[in-house]
């Protein structure tokens, strides 16, 4: 018997039991619906993460640390360890190896790295903006020249060029806090007040200051030294849905950042120590540089690794939903087995007739397997179609509700995975239909024809 004829006959048989066929395929449709949405969400999340990283991290970027535990959430350095003056001790008692100026110099000498920028730990007492006496505080960071952001006002230098040491870049949010339009702030002076760490004064220092300035001098010494850094507002960074860094930080040039960091940490254990350094791979692949750095005792993370971390989260969530969908599919498999068994019983006479007319047992089995495949196909179409329609219509709402930014959709429906899904559902249905089909194939035609 020709395959085409069997497929057609299988379709006709299903049409004669429309309600049953539909209900059986609905079970598969539930699984297909969940799987389609999961695939679409995974696709969307991955693309969103790509975009997020693409607009925040230069693909050549490397994030270099000396302590590999920074990158592994499970490993800690808690416990009894030998004291090292270069380590920083965290609140939980664990210590982290830091990079020293010696490391920075060593990294700067490397031919496979450029744009070496230590992660300065910047703090300020307060800041004031020209035209107001009001004091504000905010977080402070170094300007990243490897990514060019959009501006709400002012202009940023070309990609790869630092802002000048007396310039500062501000996020759009700050302008509204200051009660100004972004354009009004450009060119205005911004004064940072930073404090030198109060190192315990030595006895000689105390004696000297009491001798020259009296007790007033002593009070001043205890209070600590501060300095004012006057900067010009160069640009206001536009709020971006996909920009992670600098969206809440005031940014100064790399040089200025170093000066502030060195001023505030001078005389302390933290002076010229950095827990991380960012750099760009020069004329080589970030992964190769990462491997080379590993040999020299540094641990590095590439932009790809960062992507991996985000994807790992996406994959975990996706895995959970896929698990539920698979449970639904297993349930639907039993539905198909049951339905097909009933179908075989109902059509005993028809099977007997077909076998009496010379239809081979193999072809009878195929007839029932194709019926199962049709059910799988129908369920797949209903589920995937429903998910696509629902997801597509919900996309604008999701984007708006979670403020993902314009043009970002979290559910991305691609034809290829959906087609692959439907085909696998058909295969699952055929496997489910195996036992009933075998029963039909083994039916004795004489017995079958005797059944009235």
């Amino acid at each position, binding site marked *: 018997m020709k395959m085409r004829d069997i497929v057609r006959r299988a379709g*006709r048989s299903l049409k004669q039991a429309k309600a049953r066929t539909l209900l059986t395929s609905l079970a598969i449709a539930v699984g297909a619906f969940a799987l389609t949405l999961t695939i679409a969400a995974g696709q969307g999340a991955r693309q969103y993460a790509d975009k997020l990283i693409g607009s925040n991290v230069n693909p050549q970027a490397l994030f270099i640390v000396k302590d590999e535990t920074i990158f592994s959430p499970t490993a800690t350095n808690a416990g009894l360890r030998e004291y090292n003056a270069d380590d920083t001790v965290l609140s939980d008692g664990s210590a982290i190896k830091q990079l020293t100026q010696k490391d920075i110099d060593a990294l700067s000498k490397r031919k496979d790295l450029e744009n070496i920028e230590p992660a300065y730990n910047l703090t300020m007492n307060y800041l004031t903006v020209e035209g107001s006496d009001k004091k504000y505080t905010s977080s402070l960071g170094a300007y990243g020249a490897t990514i060019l952001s959009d501006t709400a006002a002012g202009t940023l230098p070309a990609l790869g060029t630092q802002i000048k040491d007396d310039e500062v870049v501000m996020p759009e949010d700050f302008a509204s806090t200051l009660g100004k339009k972004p354009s009004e702030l450009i060119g205005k002076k911004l004064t940072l007040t930073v404090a030198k760490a109060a190192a315990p004064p030595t006895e000689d220092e105390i004696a000297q200051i009491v001798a020259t300035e009296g007790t007033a001098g002593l009070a001043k010494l205890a209070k600590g030294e501060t300095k004012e850094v006057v900067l010009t507002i160069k640009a206001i960074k536009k709020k971006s849905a996909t920009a992670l860094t600098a969206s809440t930080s005031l940014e100064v040039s790399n040089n200025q950042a170093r000066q502030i960091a060195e001023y505030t940490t001078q005389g302390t254990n933290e002076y010229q120590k950095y827990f991380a350094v960012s750099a760009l791979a020069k004329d080589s692949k970030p992964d190769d540089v990462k491997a080379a750095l590993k040999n020299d005792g540094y641990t590095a993370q590439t932009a790809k690794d960062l992507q991996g971390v985000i994807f790992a989260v996406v994959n975990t969530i996706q895995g959970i939903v896929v698990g539920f969908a698979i449970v639904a599919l297993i349930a639907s498999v039993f539905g198909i087995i049951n339905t097909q068994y009933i179908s075989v019983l109902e059509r005993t006479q028809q099977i*007997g*007739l077909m076998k*009496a*007319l*010379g*239809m081979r047992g193999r*072809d009878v089995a195929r007839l029932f397997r194709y019926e199962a495949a049709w059910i799988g196909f129908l369920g797949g179409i209903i589920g995937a179609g429903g998910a696509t329609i629902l997801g597509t219509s919900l996309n604008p709402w999701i984007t708006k509700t979670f403020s993902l930014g314009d043009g970002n959709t979290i559910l991305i429906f691609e034809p290829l995975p959906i087609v692959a899904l439907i085909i696998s559902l058909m295969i699952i249905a055929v496997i489910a239909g195996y036992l009933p089909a075998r029963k039909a194939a083994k039916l004795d035609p004489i017995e079958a*024809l005797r059944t*009235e």
Partner: protein
Amino acid sequence: MIEVKHLTKTYGKKNNIFTALDDVTFTIPDGASVAIIGKSGSGKSTLMHAMSGLDRPQQGEVIVDGEDILKLKKKAVDHFRATQMSFIFQSFFVQANESCFDNVGLPLEIASVASKERRQRIIEALEAVELGDKIKSKAKNLSGGQKQRLAIARAIVNKPKILFADEPTGNLDSTTGDTIEDLLFSYTKKNKTTLIIVTHDPDLASKCDIEIRIKDGKIEAINEHKKAPTKHATLGRIQ
């Protein structure tokens, strides 16, 4: 020519043994109409099943055109049934929800006949039983007589050499039954098809060329009726 030699079929085991066919031997010439007549339980249906290769008796041979179909492999027997034999049943066994066209097409689909040729042969068969206007009708909308005519169309569409009819008129009133009988006899005589009717109706049996009486699995008598072949040639008005 069909030669049946020493056919023996038993059911059950040792103490509970039942002999359905007991050393049955006879010969049927090509194109003959044969009635296998007996009471229910006499073994006539078992004989038909054995002759069509549906059943496998323990002993004996069924030689059709020189070949013992009981020695053929299952695949070959299936092919043999699909191309050389057909069946008509007491309760028609037409597929109620399918159109007449699809009902009649089944044997051709099984025999893998190309769909273009199929269409033509289905129409011919339906016209031969005067159901040419019912091609698209569902089988469930037909009357009993029409259903059996549809079954005949399905039986003749693959131009079989042997046509088995199991109580073909058992579910029909006598007038309708007569027209079905006439249709069967005229078709088989015209096309030189061997017709084997299983029945318990002596009137129907007497219309056949050969009458094989069977009782308790044994042949009781074989009667040959010498009749003018024109007797069944006229086809009455069909309901």
